[in-house]
C-alpha cells in the first residue's frame, strides 16, 4: 500500500521509543497489547489443558457403568472445575484477552489499546484469579457444587468446605479482569481508529469484539452481585437465599442466568468475528450483506439479555412467562441465521481455498447449526421441560461452546500464526489435526443427544447398567481421546513450525485487513505510518496518505467518521499492575478465610498502589 513518504530513520527512532526491557522483567512490566495478548493466549491455553484433563477424567469415569475411577467427591470437584475453568478461565480470556487484545489495535490502525496499563492489570488479575480458584483444587477443597452453584446446595449447611468460597471470590476477582479488558476494547474501537476508518469501514471482527465487550460490561454486575450475596450469606449469616430467613433460592437463579445467558453470547461472538475475518480472505471476495452481518452481531448480544429464564423453565414460573422467554429465545435465531447464510453465500460466490483456517470455519458452521437447532428445540417449552438437565442439553451446549466457539479459535490460531510468529505452519499436518479434531468432537458430543433422550441425567458420577446408556458413553469417551489427539497434533505442528516453518512475510494469505499491512511479527509500535483508510478492505482497496506520530503516541479519531482529532500519549511499561493484582489476591485470600479486617487493609493497599500508578505520569520522550 502507498503512504506518505516516511523518513528512513523513522522506524529506528520509533523502535527506541517503544522497545520494552528484554527477559522476565520485560514481560512482568509490559504494557504492549501484543505481549499482553500473548500472555492471555498462553495462560488461557494452560487453563484449556487443565479443563481438558478434567474432562478426560470425567469421561474415563463415565466410560462404563458403575466405574470406580473416581468417587463422587472427586467427580463433583472435577466436573465443577471443568465447567468453571472452560467458561471463565479459558474461552472468554482467549476471545477477548488474547484475540481481542492482540488484533483489535492492529485492525483499527492503532499503536496500542486505549489504556495499556489497565490492559496489563487485566492480565495479572486474570492470572491471579485463575490461580486463586485452582488453589482450592490443590488443597483438596475445590468447588464441587456445579458451575452454576445453585442454592441451597451452595450454602454453608450443604457445602461446608472452602470450595464454594474459592469459586465465588475467585469469580468476583476474575470479573475485574474481564471488565477492564472490555472497557479497553470498547474505548479503542470507538476512539482510536485510523483516520478514514469510519464505523461502516470497521472490520466485522471489531464489531463482534464490540458486541462481546459491550455485553461483558452489562452481564458481569448481576454475577458479581449474586456472588457477593452468596458470600455474605456464607460468611456473615445473611438470608438472601433461604426461605426461613425471608429469602428465595430463585433469587440466585435469576441473577445467575441474567449473567449466564448473555455470557454464552459473549463466548461465541469473538468466534463470529474470527469467522468473518477468515471467510473473505479465503473466499477471496468481500462478505456479502456486511452491514446486515454487523447488525446481526450486535443484535445477538442485545436480544441475548432478554432470554435468561429459558434456563429456568422447570422452576414453576407461570405459562405466560414461559411463553415470553420462549418467544425471545426464538428471536435470537434470526440474526444467527442471517450470519450463517452470509457466510455460506460469500463462500459460494467466491473462489474459496480450503486451507486449514477455512476448514475450521466450515466445521464451525456445521457444529453451530446443529447446536443451534437443538437450541431451537429447547424453545419448545414442554420439550425443554422434558430433556433439560439430561445429556441432551450437555450435547447442545458443547456443540455451541466447543463446536461453535472453540473451532473458530483453532482456525484463528492457524490463520494469525504467521502474523504473530513470522513463520508459516505446516498445512498438511494441520489438515490432519483438523480432521482428527473434527471427528473426535462429533464422536464425543453427538451421542450425548441420544443418551439424554434415553434419560441419562447430567452431573452424575456414575450410572447403572441395563439402562441402555453404556455404549453411547463408551463412544463419547473414545471420542474425547480422539479429540485430544487432534489438539495435541495441532500443538505439535505449531510448536515445530515456530522454529522450522518457512518465513511468512507480512501477508501470506492476501488478506484485506490492516494487521496484514505491517511486518510479521509486528514491530512494537505496530505501524510507523498510521495508514489512511478509505474502504472496509484496506489492503484490497488502499488509499493514499497517512500520519506518522513520532513518539510513544497513537491517533485518536471521532467516533462515527474517524476524522483525526488528536495525538494521544501512551504510557510506558510499569510494575504497578502486577503489584496491584498481587495485593488484591491477598485481599481475596484473607476474605476467604474470614479475616475481614486484614482483607480491608489489603484492599486499601491495593487502592494506594493504584493511586501510585496513576500519580506517575507517562514519560515524554
Amino acid at each position: 500500500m502507498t503512504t506518505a513518504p516516511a523518513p528512513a530513520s523513522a522506524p529506528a527512532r520509533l523502535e527506541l521509543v517503544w522497545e520494552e526491557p528484554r527477559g522476565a522483567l520485560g514481560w512482568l512490566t509490559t504494557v504492549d497489547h501484543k505481549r499482553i495478548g500473548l500472555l492471555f493466549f498462553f495462560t488461557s491455553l494452560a487453563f484449556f489443558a487443565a479443563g481438558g484433563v478434567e474432562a478426560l477424567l470425567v469421561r474415563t469415569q463415565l466410560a462404563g457403568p458403575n466405574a470406580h475411577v473416581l468417587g463422587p467427591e472427586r467427580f463433583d470437584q472435577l466436573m465443577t472445575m471443568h465447567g468453571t475453568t472452560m467458561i471463565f478461565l479459558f474461552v472468554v480470556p482467549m476471545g477477548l484477552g488474547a484475540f481481542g487484545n492482540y488484533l483489535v489495535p492492529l485492525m483499527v490502525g492503532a499503536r496500542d489499546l486505549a489504556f495499556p496499563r489497565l490492559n496489563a492489570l487485566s492480565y495479572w488479575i486474570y492470572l491471579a484469579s485463575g490461580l486463586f480458584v485452582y488453589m482450592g483444587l490443590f488443597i483438596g477443597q475445590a468447588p464441587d457444587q456445579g458451575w452454576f452453584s445453585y442454592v441451597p446446595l451452595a450454602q454453608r449447611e450443604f457445602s461446608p468446605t472452602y470450595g464454594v468460597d474459592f469459586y465465588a471470590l475467585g469469580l468476583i476477582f476474575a470479573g475485574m479482569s474481564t471488565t477492564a479488558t472490555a472497557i479497553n476494547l470498547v474505548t479503542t474501537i470507538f476512539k482510536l481508529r485510523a483516520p478514514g476508518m469510519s464505523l461502516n469501514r470497521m472490520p466485522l471482527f471489531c464489531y463482534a469484539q464490540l458486541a462481546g465487550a459491550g455485553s461483558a460490561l452489562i452481564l458481569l454486575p448481576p454475577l458479581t452481585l449474586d456472588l457477593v450475596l452468596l458470600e455474605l450469606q456464607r460468611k456473615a449469616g445473611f438470608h438472601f437465599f433461604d426461605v426461613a430467613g425471608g429469602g428465595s433460592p430463585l433469587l440466585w437463579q435469576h441473577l445467575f442466568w441474567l449473567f449466564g445467558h448473555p455470557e454464552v453470547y459473549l463466548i461465541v461472538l469473538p468466534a463470529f468475528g474470527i469467522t468473518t475475518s477468515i471467510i473473505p480472505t479465503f473466499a477471496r471476495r468481500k462478505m456479502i450483506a456486511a452491514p446486515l452481518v454487523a447488525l446481526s452481531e450486535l443484535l445477538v448480544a442485545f436480544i441475548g439479555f432478554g432470554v435468561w429464564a429459558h434456563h429456568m423453565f422447570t422452576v414453576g414460573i407461570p405459562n405466560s412467562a414461559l411463553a415470553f422467554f420462549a418467544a425471545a429465545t426464538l428471536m435470537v435465531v434470526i440474526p444467527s441465521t442471517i450470519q450463517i447464510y452470509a457466510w455460506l453465500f460469500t463462500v459460494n460466490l467466491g473462489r474459496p481455498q480450503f486451507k486449514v483456517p477455512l476448514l475450521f470455519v466450515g466445521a464451525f458452521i456445521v457444529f453451530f447449526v446443529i447446536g443451534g437447532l437443538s437450541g431451537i428445540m429447547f424453545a419448545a417449552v414442554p420439550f425443554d421441560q422434558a430433556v433439560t438437565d439430561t445429556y441432551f442439553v450437555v450435547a447442545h451446549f458443547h456443540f455451541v461452546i466447543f463446536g461453535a466457539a472453540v473451532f473458530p479459535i483453532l482456525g484463528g490460531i492457524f490463520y494469525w500464526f504467521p502474523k504473530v510468529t513470522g513463520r508459516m505452519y505446516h498445512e498438511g499436518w494441520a489438515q490432519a489435526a483438523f480432521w482428527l479434531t473434527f471427528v473426535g468432537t462429533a464422536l464425543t458430543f453427538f451421542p450425548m443427544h441420544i443418551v439424554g433422550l434415553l434419560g441419562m441425567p447430567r452431573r452424575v458420577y456414575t450410572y447403572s447398567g441395563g439402562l441402555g446408556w453404556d455404549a453411547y458413553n463408551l463412544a463419547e469417551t473414545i471420542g474425547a481421546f480422539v479429540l485430544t489427539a487432534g489438539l495435541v497434533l495441532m500443538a505439535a505442528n505449531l510448536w515445530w513450525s515456530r522454529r522450522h516453518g518457512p518465513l511468512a512475510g507480512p501477508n501470506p494469505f492476501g488478506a484485506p485487513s490492516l494487521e496484514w499491512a505491517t511486518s510479521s511479527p509486528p514491530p512494537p509500535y505496530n505501524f510507523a505510518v498510521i495508514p489512511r483508510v478509505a474502504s472496509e478492505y484496506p489492503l484490497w482497496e488502499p488509499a493514499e496518505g497517512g500520519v506518522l506520530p513520532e513518539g510513544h503516541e497513537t491517533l485518536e479519531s471521532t467516533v462515527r467518521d474517524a476524522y483525526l482529532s488528536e495525538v494521544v500519549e501512551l504510557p510506558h511499561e510499569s510494575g504497578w499492575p502486577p503489584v496491584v493484582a498481587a495485593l488484591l489476591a491477598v485481599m481475596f485470600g484473607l476474605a476467604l478465610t474470614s479475616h475481614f479486617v486484614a482483607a480491608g487493609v489489603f484492599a486499601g493497599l491495593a487502592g494506594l498502589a493504584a493511586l501510585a500508578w496513576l500519580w506517575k505520569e507517562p514519560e515524554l520522550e
Partner: protein
Amino acid sequence: MLHPASPQQHDIATLFWVMTGVAGFGIALIVFLLWLGWARRKREGMPGGERAGIGLLLLLGVVAPIVSLSALFVWSDVFVLRATSAPKPSSASLTVEVIGHQWWWEVRYPGTRAVTANEIHIPAGERVNVVGRSADVIHSFWVPALNRKIDLIPGRTNRILLDAARPGRYRGQCYEFCGLQHAHMGLWLVADPPARFRAWLADQERDATASGEGRDAFLAEACSSCHQIRGTPAQADVGPDLTHVASRRTIAGALLPNTPSELAAWITDPQHFKPGNRMPTLGLPGSEIRSIVAYLEKLR
C-alpha cells in the same frame, strides 16, 4: 421419553420427532451449501450473482425462520404447553405429595395415613396431581415416560399431571444436581389397575404389626433414630419410612433390588453403595443384621 405411556408424553414425543425431522432437513441444507462451495471452488460467482445470494439469505435466513419458528411457537408454547401443564387439583382424582431429600424421595398420600419412599403407586387411567416439594436442596422430579419434569424447590410447591394410559412400571430419577449421591436418587412409578391401587393404598395405611428379635434390634440400634415404622416407637423422619419396606421392589433410591441379601449388604455398609449418603455404616454384627433383615422382610 421416546416411549410415551401417557397422552401428555405422547404430545411431547410427537413434538420432538417433528422438530427433529425439520432440523434434519435444516442441517442437510447447510451441509449441502458447504459442499457446494467446495465443489464449485474453482468457479467464481453463483447463478444470479450477489443479488441472488442476498435474496436467498433473506429468504432462508429471515423469512423461513420467522414462518417456521412462529408455527413452532404456537404449537409447542401454546397448545402442548397447556396440555402438559400442572393440572387443576379438582380435575385430578388423586393427589400425591413427593418431597425430595438428599438422596431419596418421600411419598405421601394426603387424606390418608400412607407414607412410603422411592416407589410411587398411582391408578392407571386416572389423572393424578403430583405435588412436589423439597426438604433440603433443589431436586427435580421426572418420570420420562409420563410427562415433563418439575423442580422441587424449598419454600415452593410445583405440580405435575401424571396420567398413565396403561398399567406399568416407569423409572424416574432426580434431575437437578443435589450433591454427592445425585446419581443414585432413583425412583419407580408403578401404575396399577385402579382396584389394585386402592388395595395397595389401604395396605400402606396400616400400621406394622410384625414382631421378633429383629424388631427389638431395630429399636435398640441407631436404626430407629432415623427411620419410622408406624405401629412401633420408631417415629423419626430423617430417613425413609420403613413401615411397608418389604412391599417395595427396590431399596436405596432404586439402586438395589429389594432382596434379603441385598438388604443385608446395604445395612452392613451403606457407604459402600452410596458413599456420602446420610446412612452411616454402623458396624453391626452379621447375626444382628440378619435378624433385622428378617424382621424388615415381614413389613409388607
